[in-house]
């Protein structure tokens, strides 16, 4: 596929995913560099996404750019708009936690909040947070994909997934603000760690009874989420002033939950044994010395 404006040549290797408004392919160009190429149907819609990526690149100059090219190609006689991004290898967060264990939640959750902090400070809200859009790479590295749902702070949320939506749970408006994303992150963890009960809840609850307190009931009765109860409650109630605050609180709660439970856990058995032996030995030596 050759871009008709900028003339770059891309070789599409395989389909990475299907979005709501296009397909994403893994592509190579020239000397084995890999990219992700998003091909759409509607030039204006695709350009809207590219605009968001460009504006993020613009506001975060300290990292390599994410958006690399915007162009059209002629495929089988029709005009096909596309844009090219940095390729981010990774798997959806839900699958990652299932494969690698839920003890990765601390790092992954922290990384996600740090990523969102950058986004929010640049004036954007991600909006459509869900497992498929949060990719985890090596050692819990987080990257957000599909910026089609990102909205400028203060505007209306452009795209969302029903069960992650604050409005659906009667917990606030659909105006894009950082707290909208905090709410969706809380739902992401509920969905990832207690998916069955969450889906069951959405099926049985009458619309007028949808409320964050129903979600908190799930949190309180889940051993993995219970230690994060304070954080979840704040996120669901929109109580975090900034994402930096949310991230800091997450970190400290995870640290507390990782701390050993009782004093006896703190000192491994062999160490206690050695100490005992050392005391007995020194007392014996002292006794022998005194008796002499």
């Amino acid at each position, binding site marked *: 596929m050759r871009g008709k*404006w*900028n003339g770059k040549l891309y070789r599409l290797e395989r389909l990475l995913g299907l979005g709501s408004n296009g397909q994403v392919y893994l592509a190579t160009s020239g000397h084995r560099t890999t990219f992700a190429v998003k091909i759409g149907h*509607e*030039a*204006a*819609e695709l*350009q*809207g996404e*590219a*605009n968001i990526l*460009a504006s993020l690149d613009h506001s975060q100059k300290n990292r390599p750019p994410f958006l690399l090219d*915007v*162009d*059209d190609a002629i495929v089988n006689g029709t*005009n096909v*708009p596309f844009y090219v991004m940095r390729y981010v290898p990774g798997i959806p967060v839900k699958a990652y936690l299932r494969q690698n264990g839920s003890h990765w939640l601390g790092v992954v959750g922290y990384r996600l909040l740090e990523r969102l902090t950058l986004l929010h400070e640049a004036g954007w809200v991600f909006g459509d947070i869900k497992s498929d859009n949060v990719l985890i790479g090596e050692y819990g590295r987080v990257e957000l994909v599909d910026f089609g749902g990102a909205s400028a702070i*203060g*505007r*209306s*949320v452009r795209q969302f997934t*029903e069960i992650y939506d604050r*409005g*659906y749970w009667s917990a606030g*408006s*659909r*105006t*894009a603000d950082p707290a909208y994303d905090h709410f969706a992150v809380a739902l992401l963890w509920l969905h990832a760690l207690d998916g069955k009960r969450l889906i069951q809840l959405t099926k049985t609850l009458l*619309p007028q009874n949808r409320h964050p307190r129903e979600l908190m009931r799930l949190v309180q009765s889940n051993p993995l989420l219970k230690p994060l109860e304070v954080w979840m409650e704040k996120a669901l109630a929109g109580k975090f002033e900034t994402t930096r605050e949310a991230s800091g609180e997450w970190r400290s709660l995870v640290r507390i939950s990782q701390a050993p439970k009782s004093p006896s856990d703190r000192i491994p058995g062999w160490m206690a044994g050695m100490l005992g032996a050392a005391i007995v030995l020194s007392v014996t030596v002292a006794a022998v010395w005194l008796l002499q």
Partner: protein
Amino acid sequence: MKQILLITDGGSNVGESPVIAAAQAYAEGITVNVAGVIDDGTIGEYGSVEIAEIARAGGGISQIVTSRQLSRTVQMMTRQTVAGSIRQAVNQELRQLFGVDNVGSLPPPKRAEVVKVMEDMEETISLSVALLIDASASMKPKLHAVEEAIRDLTLSLQARTGKSQVSVFHFPGDSQHDYCVMDAGWTSNAAKIGSLFGRIRMRGTTPTGPALMQVVDFIGETCGKISKTELAEAPLQATRGDPNEVRSDYVV
């Protein structure tokens, strides 16, 4: 920008053709979208063809969904229609000013600028959506889902920067002579649209066409104004206005 959203579960059986009514609405600058709701697969070929035809004549989109998917569908159709109308208007301007076919024919850097303006317009243009609900007997079990979809749509519209308002109608009316009844006049407050359909007596006929025409008249008369009465007790007494009075208001 003005839209009518028709929520129905089957074919019309009284009065003029809803396809013609939708075509008239479109001629007056009102886009007509149709959501067909089925839960047990009984919409029939006649019903589904008519639903698609009404939307096509009304310059809008149609989709046939289960009542579970209704909120999402109503949401998406409203947003897509706004985006679509703006795209259409922008493309027309581009053709006249620069002789290019559409936004996609501009080189990417220029396209980026135009798209920014288009998205601004999508967010800030004033939007009026009249919901027309089929309340014939077969729709009864689906009315809760309809009410939920209306609440959900209002919530989304409230978040827009531009002025947004909805009004709600159902058909058939309570007596032989009213084709449709207004449940809520223009409002932008979700809380004002409470339990809407409590007092509806379900009847058998489905006068989709005449009801559609009555809503077109209502929009023509109240265009741009928010009526004082949020919940009208009496059925809407509509007089047919001169169709030339109302013009498309999405001129860029």
